[in-house]
């Protein structure tokens, strides 16, 4: 079999190799770990991006690990969504990793640096593995990898508040993982399979007495994954964890890890259960509608809570709670336009939120400031990072021509199409509140004078401002050139809705 046919499994095998050897590299030369991790992410990134063409050609790329056909073995199944997630993960991780170079040496004890990069590679590979697998238990295993590594990454600085936040995160995260494992076992007991398309087929031909078990499994999946995604009101772990973590970790967590929860819901509802499955359509439909309302409320609740925050990182964290609402609302709309809006929000938020957290980290790195009121006049002192913040805010609020605007536009369009005018109100209200909390910061940065003498320009090192700038420009790029991926996303949505 040619090298290109083994392409899918390399997406996991390559970063695994880099992660396994990272501590050894650290033992040899601590400074080399950064470059080792960079190489690992870069190679995986190359592999991911070159997959795009293959997936668009054949709609889904499969690979049977060990040569066993499913359901006897584990199959890697990369569809449009999988490659979309994988590319987002690699793109954002690459930029955040570059930022980590300075940040790690500044914030972490030197002995921990090799393990920081090891954990980074592990969380990276776990998210990719989660996105590309076609086996539900395999998905659980990768989910545990990124969960365990994220608990440690939050607490890695050893600060009091961070360790406390990590413990709360661990308790809620582990409980939700167990709920998901329970759901997997319920599903296994009535279908006998762990392969997602196979489960779907078996559910269709299952004895109707077993249907309630599948419905209960679905409910448990939803609870478990919504905790992972930090959907209001089960978001309790997120504000502390994302605010107290080191800033690049906050960026990865908010931009990528919580999206795994959303991705899990997508897989469960559409690949495992599927819309055309008539036996459970009542519970399936009801759960999705309930979820869409919870998401709509989350949009406003998260944004409102963000407005009241005095700490910059807490504000950004609550904004993430709000945006998960946008993404889930789009997905629960069950129309190609709505779902495209959800996916595009995923991308726009990943880029924008990572940028916001990295900039917040830059402010902490340079000046140790965390309170919004202390940001007065920083726009003059740190123009590039503050500018990136402003640009990314446009996307978070949803102002043209940013990616966030395109995303929310599709959400509104989808809602109008379905006649859900209430959702439009929630979306617009969310944007209004986002404008309040984001532009307040921008106002302090650029339109107030700092207390004390006028500062000269004193930016963070280039390895820190460049990722911020690139992420912010990314939100602009994907706003202007949305035509690049919108059609594929719409195809993906249609395929899911079949």
């Amino acid at each position, binding site marked *: *079999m040619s090298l290109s046919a*083994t392409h899918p*499994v390399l997406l996991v*095998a390559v970063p*695994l*190799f880099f*992660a*396994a*050897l990272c*501590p*050894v590299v650290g*033992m040899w030369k601590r400074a080399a770990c950064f470059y080792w991790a960079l190489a690992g992410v870069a190679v995986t990134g190359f592999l991911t991006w070159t997959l795009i063409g293959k997936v668009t050609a054949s709609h889904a790329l499969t*690979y*049977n*690990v*060990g*040569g*066993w056909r499913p*359901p*006897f*073995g*584990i199959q890697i199944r990369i569809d449009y969504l999988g490659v979309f997630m994988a590319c987002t993960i690699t793109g954002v991780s690459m930029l955040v990793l570059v930022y980590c170079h300075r940040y790690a040496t500044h914030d972490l*004890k030197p*002995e921990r640096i090799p*393990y*920081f990069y*090891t*954990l980074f590679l*592990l969380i990276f*590979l*776990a998210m990719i*593995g989660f996105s590309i697998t076609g*086996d539900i*238990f*395999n998905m659980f*295993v*990768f989910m*545990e*990898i990124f969960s*365990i*590594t994220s*608990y*440690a*990454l939050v607490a890695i600085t*050893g600060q009091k508040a961070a360790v406390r936040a990590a413990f709360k995160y661990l308790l809620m995260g582990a409980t939700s993982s167990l709920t998901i494992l329970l759901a997997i076992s*319920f599903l*296994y*007991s*009535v*279908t*006998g*399979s762990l392969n997602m398309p196979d489960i779907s087929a*078996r559910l269709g031909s299952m004895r109707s007495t*077993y*249907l*309630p*078990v599948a419905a*209960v*499994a679905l*409910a448990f999946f939803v609870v478990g994954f919504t905790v992972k995604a930090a959907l209001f009101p089960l978001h309790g772990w997120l504000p502390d964890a994302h605010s107290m973590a080191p800033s690049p970790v906050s960026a990865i967590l908010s931009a990528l890890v919580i999206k795994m929860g959303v991705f899990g819901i997508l897989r469960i509802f559409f690949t495992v259960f599927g819309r055309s499955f008539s036996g459970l359509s009542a519970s399936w439909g009801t759960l999705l509608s309930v979820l869409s309302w919870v998401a709509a409320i989350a949009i406003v609740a998260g944004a409102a809570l963000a407005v009241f925050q005095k700490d910059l990182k807490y504000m950004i964290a609550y904004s993430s709670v709000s945006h998960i609402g946008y993404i889930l609302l789009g997905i629960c709309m069950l129309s190609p336009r709505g779902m495209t809006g959800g996916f595009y929000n995923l991308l726009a938020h990943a880029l924008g939120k990572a940028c916001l957290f990295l900039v917040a980290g830059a402010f902490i790195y340079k000046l140790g400031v965390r309170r919004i009121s202390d940001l007065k006049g920083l726009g003059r002192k740190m123009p590039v990072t503050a500018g990136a913040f402003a640009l990314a805010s446009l996307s978070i609020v949803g102002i043209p021509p940013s990616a966030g605007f395109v995303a929310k536009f599709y959400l509104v369009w989808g809602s109008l199409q379905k006649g859900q005018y209430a959702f439009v109100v929630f979306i617009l209200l969310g944007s209004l509140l986002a404008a309040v909390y984001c532009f307040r910061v921008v106002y302090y940065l650029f339109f107030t004078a700092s207390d004390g003498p006028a500062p000269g320009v004193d930016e963070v090192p280039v390895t820190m401002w460049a990722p911020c700038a690139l992420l912010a420009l990314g939100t602009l790029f994907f706003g202007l050139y949305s035509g690049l991926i919108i059609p594929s996303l719409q195809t993906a949505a249609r395929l899911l809705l079949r």
Partner: protein
Amino acid sequence: MKKALVLMALALIAVVFIYAIGKMPPMNGKDTPDKTHVVPRYLEKGEEEAGARNIITGIILNYRGYDTMGETTVIFSALAAVIALLDREKRRRSRSSVDASKVETSTVVRTVARFVLPVVVLFAVYTILHGEPSAGGGFQGGAIIGASIIIFALVWGLPEATDRMPLGARLPLESSAMLAFLAMGVIGLAYGVHFLTFILPGLSAGVAETVRSLMLTVIEAGIGVGGGIIFVSIVFAMMREDRYELQQDRK
């Protein structure tokens, strides 16, 4: 108030859970969906296809080897997490009273340990290598090895244990589980078959089976050693004496 909310939530979960149990296929049944779909093939063909009489080992290493690779990654990430949070144990510098083991020197404990531990290690090696023909396997044996080294550390003290299992030797071994999987998987790729395939094409039947046995043993050994060393390292990191400074009773 909070307790009441928790109890209400638990009651709801209880009702839903018990309801599902009422609808699930009967326990102990022979024709339940989970036993009739994939399992017959595993039981019938497991020995010849997967090379293991212990079907569970066949599933873990062969049919669902990718999951086991993920599992070794989980335990490795636990190690990385623990070390990132706790840092490695300090190299022993001098024999002071602070370094002394908290376990009192008991002749009985030490003598019994001296006799029992080597046997335990031997048993662990047996367990690792006998994953295929009988109950056993990599992780199981690895846990036993890890436990025996931890007992050594508890009885003789951490400094003695780190002397015998120095960091320089442990660190590369910690990665051995994941690397064993990768190495064996890549062999399959080199022969043109799927990752983690153990029957290599182009070899005669007998040779192919021997090669498969060998590859599975390498993975088992990798998991055993890697897993065991990881447990040891985690406990060593937690056992740092200087962390537990003597303090007043906190009531």
